[in-house]
């Protein structure tokens, strides 16, 4: 079976800084990582391949630097990697991104066999939209399975797949037909440690690099800023509250007195909460 995994190289958002004057992102010294949610998708893909045979192709769209992430994916045991990079893609929103990726997946299909499953993480940590996966599914006519926590029976001959997915208030078990697009819920299975042989192979592997034309993309109006119906009109730092927190004076007070003072202030600020707390306490 042929599996495609879409990953994204993202700035480690825990270490992002905002320029105090311009409100722009200061990227200096901010390390880039594979979007952590994508690693769960990659691991599920590798497990599926190990179970049923076949190959895993990893795909990313991004700057040339994103090759590092692909090479890392190969180290984990993916079989091949494709980097889709072109300045025309700059400024893509979710719609334009799903277009470019779906075209590249089609090209991957022509080159190495039509994929049976396309995997993505549930969302990225820089965009947090969770919309590119569904967008790809729609464009390629793949059956969409989002927030999947477990993959059950897969019958390649009958072209069927069963999964468990997170739904509101519970777990939904679905059966559908291949090809399908699966977005993987976090915490499913930790990414494996690649074997030395895989690591050596990955270190030497050629990452396939495609620009727009090489990926078979001819309609440039669907790419990048031109292909994005949404536009960012304003970027700003959140406004601070006019007044800062009123701090309890800790001088010459025992911790017990401070706790009393804090409780009193809470009851003052929220009239009625004391009664509710008592009502709750009475239930015990």
């Amino acid at each position, binding site marked *: 079976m042929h599996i495609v995994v879409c990953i994204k190289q993202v700035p480690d958002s825990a270490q992002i*800084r905002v320029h*105090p*004057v311009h409100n722009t992102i200061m990227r*200096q*010294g901010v*390390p880039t990582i594979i979007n952590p949610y994508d690693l769960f998708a990659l691991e599920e893909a590798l497990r599926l391949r190990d179970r049923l045979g076949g190959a895993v192709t990893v795909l990313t769209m991004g700057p040339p630097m994103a090759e590092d992430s692909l090479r890392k994916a190969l180290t984990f045991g993916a079989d091949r990697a494709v980097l889709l990079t072109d300045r025309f893609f700059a400024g893509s929103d979710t719609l334009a991104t799903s277009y470019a990726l779906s075209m590249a997946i089609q090209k991957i299909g022509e080159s190495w066999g039509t994929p049976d499953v396309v995997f993505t993480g549930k969302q990225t940590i820089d965009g947090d939209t969770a919309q590119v996966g569904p967008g790809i599914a729609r464009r390629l006519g793949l059956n969409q399975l989002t927030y999947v926590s477990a993959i059950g029976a897969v019958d390649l001959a009958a072209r069927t797949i069963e999964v468990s997915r997170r739904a509101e208030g519970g777990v939904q078990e679905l059966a559908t037909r291949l090809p399908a697009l699966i977005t993987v819920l976090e915490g499913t299975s930790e990414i494996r440690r*690649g*074997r*030395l042989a895989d690591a*050596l192979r990955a270190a030497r592997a050629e990452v396939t690099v495609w620009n727009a034309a090489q990926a078979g993309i001819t309609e440039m109006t669907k790419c990048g800023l031109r292909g994005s119906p949404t536009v960012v009109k304003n970027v700003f730092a959140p406004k601070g509250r006019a007044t800062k927190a009123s701090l309890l004076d800790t001088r010459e007070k025992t911790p017990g007195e401070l706790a009393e003072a804090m409780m009193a202030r809470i009851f003052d600020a929220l009239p009625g909460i004391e009664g509710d707390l008592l009502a709750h306490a009475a239930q015990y």
Partner: protein
Amino acid sequence: MSLEVFDAIVIGAGPAGNAAAYTLAKSGLKVLQLERGEYAGSKNVQGAILYADALEKLMPDFREDAPLERHIVEQRMWMMDDNSHTGMHYRSDSFNEEKPNRYTIIRSQFDRWFNRRVREAGAVVLCETTVTELLKDTNGRVIGVKTDRHGDAILADVVILAEGVNGLVGQRAGLRQELQPAHVALAVKEMHFLPEEVIAARFNLKGDEGVVIEAMGTITKGMVGTAFLYTNRESISVGIGCMVQDLAENRVSSSALLEAFKAHPSIRSLLEGSEVREYAAHLIPEGGYKAVPQLYGEGWLVVGDAAHFVNAVHREGSNLAMTSGRIAAETVVWLKRRREACSAENLAEYRRRLEASFVMKDLKKYRGIPALLHRNKHFLDLYPRIASRAAQIWLRVDGVDKRSKEGEIVRDLRAARGWRGLVGDAFKVARAWR
């Protein structure tokens, strides 16, 4: 599965390892480079100084795409006491040359870029892979490495250890001793982020110009050590380091020293309004010439910090690392071309070449300094105070005539050390410096 054989394995992807692997790969050798971190430089998020000359000898065109922060046009050397600094500034427009000599860099970015060039040169680079032990044959000759990844050992004709100051591979294999507290400094650094234009205004800089401040004095509380401040494009690196032995004897923590340094009136205003984002502590091998271990053996070489190639007096390290890495690699290439084995006897050529280079010459020149400073605490405590007081006396206009002021300064000196002490100190410094 058959064992894979390389011409050379380089352990580590810092400046020394990258220089070695790059040189080997450029010469067409089959090279494997192994790095513990997620990527080269991932363990090193801090600012540093790049000395262009050492890198230029490897890749003359590095300025085209290397991630450089600012080129240095001004050096300030400060001697500090509790609330003042005296010192020397040198700034020159001639540093605004076509190919500047020194740059500030962010190591994580720089090392990563350097390592990418190594890969492009043809080396096989494996990150997130820790060498667990050196593989030896029955004669004790190093023939390869084992890693923490599932799989066989990897063989090579020679292993170059560029694993850094506290590299465990060489220590475990008994190639060198464990670190001595007298031979290593502990430095703590922070990155303080500020808008580019604020840095430019605060340090009187334009474009990519940068400033370096190196400071010593009471800030290290009499211990042997120095503090520094570098301007990057959008941040300031600030740090302080002291010999581990001194820190242990005085029961002082480096982070407390750094807090005090940052609070010093001469430094505080330079950092005002900045956002601290990164804090890191690391060891620097500052034992000098006397701490240099055995540099080669049967099938192995050691380079960079692992070989204690740091000139603490001039705060140079990465250039010695790159140069030693390059020379080690050139030695291997030279042997390969002559179809000679990487035996200890043949690899002795590495040491000979190092001796002929600035690396060993400079270390030799300052061989006495570390011990001298350790034994003479007053150098970094008393003299800065005297210098500060002298400057106060000299600059304060208070109706006292200048001859009397001179007399007071001289009396101060004599009271502090006595003529005998002063002459002795001068003699000691001169001997250590020569």
